[in-house]
């Protein structure tokens, strides 16, 4: 079973207010099928809040989210997942008592596949991300970086039109990051979905994103190709404060 592919996920003039603190203050961005959009910004810039809004965990007020032109702002997180917005979390949140394979099977069953179909799909995705062995291992005994990769695989098992990945590289070493980058770069080609990537690791962001959207203090600071963003003086200043000389070196 394949769901109808969505082409465009839009957030329009999103505001989110946490008891007087403006987590998001008028952010507009668009994610297209086939795109990899990086969402970056200093801590507290509103990145995770933005992912929460796009995936239905947080209602914007005011602001709207549109999926292929339909207003989906009022949908619950569960409905958004069914509509094709898959997400991974900062913590992997795997079902630890289930095997690696079963974690993906649950997602396949959830979109109406048979157990056989969901199992075949799970194996295909696991092999595709380079996880060839240990499909029947219970997740409680997995190394951290495997947990993170499998949570991405599980998001893909929902056959999403858009995959929102919240800091998938956190805690990974350089080698693991490279493998992850390779996987993320190929997601749109292989699965036809758009990817939004929140990440602190600039090497990963610059290496895989087609476009980058920069948030600071709940506002959009810049959007453009990695080259454009790298040179944007506002970004350099905001992203690492006054030490812009060091910022340049890091980015």
């Amino acid at each position, binding site marked *: 079973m394949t769901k109808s592919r969505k082409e465009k996920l839009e957030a329009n003039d999103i505001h989110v207010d946490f008891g007087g603190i403006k987590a998001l203050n008028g952010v507009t961005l668009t994610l297209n099928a086939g795109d990899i959009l990086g969402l970056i910004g200093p801590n507290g810039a509103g990145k995770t809040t933005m992912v929460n809004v796009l995936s239905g965990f947080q209602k914007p007020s005011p602001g709207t989210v549109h999926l292929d032109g339909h207003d989906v702002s009022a949908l619950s997180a569960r409905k958004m997942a069914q509509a094709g917005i898959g997400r991974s979390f900062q913590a992997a949140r795997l079902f630890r008592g289930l095997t690696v394979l079963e974690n993906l099977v649950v*997602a396949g*069953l959830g979109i109406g596949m048979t157990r056989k179909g969901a199992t075949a799909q799970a194996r295909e995705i696991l092999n595709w991300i380079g996880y060839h062995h240990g499909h029947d291992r219970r997740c409680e005994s997995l190394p951290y970086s495997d947990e993170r990769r499998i949570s991405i695989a599980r998001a893909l098992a929902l056959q999403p039109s858009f995959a929102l990945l919240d800091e998938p590289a956190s805690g990974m070493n350089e080698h693991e990051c490279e493998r992850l980058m390779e996987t993320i770069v190929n997601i749109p080609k292989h699965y036809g979905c758009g990817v939004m990537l929140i990440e602190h690791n600039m090497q990963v962001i610059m290496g895989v994103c087609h476009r980058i959207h920069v948030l600071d203090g709940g506002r959009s600071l810049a959007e453009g190709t990695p080259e454009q963003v790298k040179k944007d003086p506002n970004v350099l200043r905001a992203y690492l404060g006054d030490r812009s000389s060091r910022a340049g070196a890091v980015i």
Partner: protein
Amino acid sequence: MTNIVQVLIDAVALGSLYALVALAIGLVFGVMRLVNFAQGDYITVGAYSLVIPTFAATPAMMFGALPTVAMIFCVVLTVTILALLTERLAFRPLRNSDPTTLLISSFAVSYFLQSLILMLHGGRPKAINIGESLTTAVQLFGIRIPGVQLLTMGVAVTLLVTLVLFLKKTPIGIQLRAAAENFQMARLLGVPANRVIAIAFAISGILGGTISLLFVIQTGTLDIRMGVMPTVYAFFATVIGGIGSLPGAVVGGYIVGIVSVLLQSYLPEEMRAFRDAGVFTLVILILLVRPQGLIVTSAAKERV
């Protein structure tokens, strides 16, 4: 020597019973974060469904008069329907409320069912005879084992194996395990909430009905509070095992049952009255050493 073996068989048989009750409690807790104290009353209702509602001390049979297979079917079906009804009427409307509210609702269901039985059957314990042939002992390798102990162990193992296969091999079983571990995440992945919760209650009903029959065969009495103590013990079992963990519930059930029988058998006569106190002390000790229980489940806090 044979004495020890017989005590151990007693212990394992009782442990099997507690493991089954603990599993029912653990399954429902997993999907609803509800410790369903009405589980004990499912057992009581199942037992009373064997007899016709009268105030007599030795009542005429109702389901108890049926041929064995039909009797088992009717009792288990009655308890399963009861479990599903309580879920629908008392727990589903409260699903999004506080766990405390759910807990209070389960006490309400429990007292309601006890009062209902009191109204229909009266409050006096009743004598009942089913499965009489099972109380005779079987001679095995020079050890005399009461048939009912063998039956209890056999039924427990069969149910455990069936349940494990159901949970591991069927789509709804896999979804149920996922939901029992992280309900919100499971819903995000498309697990149907109403269906998995109903299935969990149905299983708790099937287990409750079976346990009620095993109890009645063992004790030969009906009492309106007969399900309470096993449920309290099973609740301790789930806590010891690590609440939310199904293997933990089974392990905890066996620990509680075995310790209880060992204390009963080896405490000096004048101290046997303190058997329950001994078991509860053990629970406290285990929780002091391992507050999270023997088998830990994931419940990491994070930003969403």
